[in-house]
């Protein structure tokens, strides 16, 4: 019981961290960023009014809070859902493998090793420490004692049984018998040595000189659930400790869903961010300079827009296996920058014709300053209203590509890939369809709610009914 409470507490702390980051730290950063760029610290009254209106639409506002907090929290997934320990201590040796893993994700330019050898932590072998095993024994040394006892009895019994069947070869024994006997004895000896070593560890564990702090859900996205009795895919079962079951290769669905959430949202944000940035640039240049620049670019945009983008991405993906960034850049180049240019272009045309901009031009203010200070804030309005729907579309595209098998590399936690497995097993393993569908639908629904609220806040429909 205390164990579960502790896990809940752990989860709560991470969520709280995410909440604090989203509500206080991120806006602060945003403000600093604007300050550095030279914008006034406060929004214009019109924007403030829009923000107030957005907050008044509770459904959208809470959706926004929910999704940002969840996404920011999901940036720390390595510390919540992972097979690596947050902290592991054995005698005087301490390691933080989950933290290292997180650092590797957060800072892709350097590598911190999160690898810990078994032999360094009282386990036998040279591979990575089995943290779950370690954690169980560290928490319950009695369990380890029982296991060791079992192993010792088993060893003795096996040895006796062997000797009963194959008596110690005498001097007249044939060579192969001797060799067989020696090999068996060596094997038993090794097991005995292991046992001895483990018994020494038992002392360490019982003496409280070892400890292990596992994440809330101690299974990572790439880990196969060998501890389950039946072959994958496994149906969800709380008794066996797989609340959402496993996929066809035996990976636990819980981390797949959670990491899939992060990757989908991050992908959509990257595509939207890059695409809108580029789109604003192109649309701005078109609208501000006009003339032949506009005409030529407009033709290019039209031609580009006629490319069937999903098809083209699939062709490219069938030739080179795209990574996250390649896929994101492909999406940006092929679609996401196009739509926004029309609006930004129109907005620039409109704003440029206005008196205050003409006055600024007339008084010799530089183009750059006019664009960034006067026109851009207005041109951002369509961007903000479109972004949520764009994000829905890009998450949908990623899921579609993964579903068709032309998306992220195999092994990447992805909702689309799980849906494909769901299609293949629609008759017998419904959980492979239901779980990603629910995750996808609820995520997209939340984002759509935000989008609808933003639209309503920025462009409130005045309902006037005459009779």
């Amino acid at each position, binding site marked *: 019981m205390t164990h579960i409470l502790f896990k809940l507490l752990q989860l709560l702390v991470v969520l709280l961290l995410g909440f604090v980051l989203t509500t206080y730290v991120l806006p602060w950063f945003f403000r600093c960023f604007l300050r550095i760029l030279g914008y006034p610290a406060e929004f214009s009254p019109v924007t403030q009014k829009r923000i107030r209106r957005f907050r008044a639409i509770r459904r959208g506002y809470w959706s926004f809070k929910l999704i940002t907090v969840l996404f920011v929290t999901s940036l720390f997934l390595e510390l919540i859902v992972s097979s690596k320990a947050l902290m592991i201590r054995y005698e005087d040796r301490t390691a933080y493998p989950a933290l290292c893993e997180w650092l590797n994700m957060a800072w892709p330019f350097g590598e911190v090793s999160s690898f810990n050898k078994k032999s360094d932590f009282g386990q036998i072998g040279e591979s990575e420490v089995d943290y779950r095993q370690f954690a169980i024994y560290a928490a319950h040394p009695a369990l380890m004692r029982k296991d060791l006892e079992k192993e010792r009895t088993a060893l003795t019994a096996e040895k006796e049984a062997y000797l009963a069947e194959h008596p110690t070869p005498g001097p007249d024994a044939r060579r192969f018998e001797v060799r067989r006997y020696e090999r068996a004895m060596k094997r038993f000896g090794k097991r005995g040595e292991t046992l001895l070593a483990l018994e020494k560890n038992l002392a360490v564990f019982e003496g409280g000189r070892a400890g292990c702090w596992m994440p809330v859900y101690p299974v990572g996205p790439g880990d196969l659930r060998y501890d389950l009795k039946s072959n994958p895919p496994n149906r969800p079962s709380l008794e066996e400790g797989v609340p959402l079951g496993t996929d066809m290769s035996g990976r636990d669905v819980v981390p797949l869903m959670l990491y899939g959430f992060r990757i989908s949202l991050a992908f959509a944000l990257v595509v939207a961010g890059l695409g809108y940035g580029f789109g604003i640039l192109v649309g701005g240049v078109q609208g501000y300079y006009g003339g032949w620049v506009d005409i030529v670019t407009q033709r290019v945009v039209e031609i580009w827009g006629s490319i069937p983008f999903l098809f083209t991405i699939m062709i490219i993906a069938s*030739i080179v296996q795209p990574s996250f960034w390649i896929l994101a850049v492909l999406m940006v180049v092929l679609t996401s920058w196009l739509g926004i240019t029309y609006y930004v272009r129109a907005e620039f045309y409109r704003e440029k014709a206005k008196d205050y901009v003409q006055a600024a031009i007339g008084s010799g203010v530089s183009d750059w300053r006019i664009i960034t200070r006067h026109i851009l804030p207005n041109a951002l309005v369509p961007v903000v209203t479109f972004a949520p729907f764009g994000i829905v579309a890009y998450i949908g595209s990623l899921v579609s590509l993964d579903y068709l098998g032309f998306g992220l590399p195999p092994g990447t936690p992805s909702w689309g890939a799980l849906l494909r497995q769901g299609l293949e097993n629609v008759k017998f393993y419904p959980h492979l369809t239901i779980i990603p569908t629910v995750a996808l639908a609820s995520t997209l629904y939340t984002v759509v709610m935000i989008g609808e609220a933003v639209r309503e806040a920025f462009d409130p429909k005045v309902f006037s009914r005459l009779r």
Partner: protein
Amino acid sequence: MHGMISYFIRRLLLIPITFVCITFMVYGIMRLSPGGPIEQARTQMLMAQMQEGGGGAFSQIGELALPQDAIDQLKIYYKLHRSIPVGYMIWLGVWPDDDRGGIFSGIIQGDFGISYRYSDSVLSTIVSKFPISVTFGLIGYLATWIVCIPLGVQKALLHRTWFDMTTSLAVFLGYSIPGFVACLALMLMFGTSLVWDLFPLGGFRSENWNDMWAAGNIWWCIKDQAWHMFIPLVGYVMSGFATMTILMKNSLLDNLGADYVRTAFAKGLSERRVIFLHALRNSMIPICVGIGGAIGLLFAGSFLIEKTCNIPGMGLLGFNSLIERDYPVLMGILVFGVLIRLTGNILSDLILAFIDPRVRFK
């Protein structure tokens, strides 16, 4: 009027340019990328050997070579021995193909090449898939109109009432589930015994459909067709539903607040006449403009839904050709896709010019 005609002529002239740009780009991607057709043929051969169980191949994966004449044949087939622009122009049909006696034979001449999966002409393969995708597209689009226009109007007239709120929630839920996921979920619920085994798990028709048709059992055929088409159709229309309903609603809301509606009421016209004759006509403009764009969808089908529901339309053909690296078919589908999309754009402009007297193209 004169300006309009010249505008459309210019738009039509832009089609070939756009077409060439796109197809050349995709052709170039296919040619430039590593793992082109020869590499693919090599892998396929390797796979075949592995399936045969020839253990020897494992040691020499890297060195495994195709017979030289096979390579030459592939090279000639894909024009790999020619530069990319020349190869492209041969494919297009504006450059003599020396390997076939210097004839001009390409897209322009209607020669799309031979599919090596179906060993049939690409054109007939593609054309044979058209009716299936068009059936879905057409029925789906009609269904969208029939449901969404009245629903949008009703929502606008009952803005912020209980009816509006609940339908909004439902419509947005539909929007947040991609069509193919909806198909999958529906197949799970109503195609297996999970909830109610009501519909088939994919397929376009029953296997004995053609026999029954030949036997004149038309009623059975229609029923069977509808039975198979229900789930994929829901997937087809789902996301479009939300877009069109909300577009209709917002458009009508905007127009209900317009000055000319007040004028119409001031003339003493009935509410029905003002809403349905004056406001609705104006709010239909943005919706009708979407028809052109929908044409593209009509013909192109959908990879996702056709794959999910196993419907042998254009989408599934494209998908399978990709998997099998059937490049002639892929290029053929691209050609059709782009052409339809471009004509769709022009159609949108035409419709706009037809229904909105204010529009003047220059």
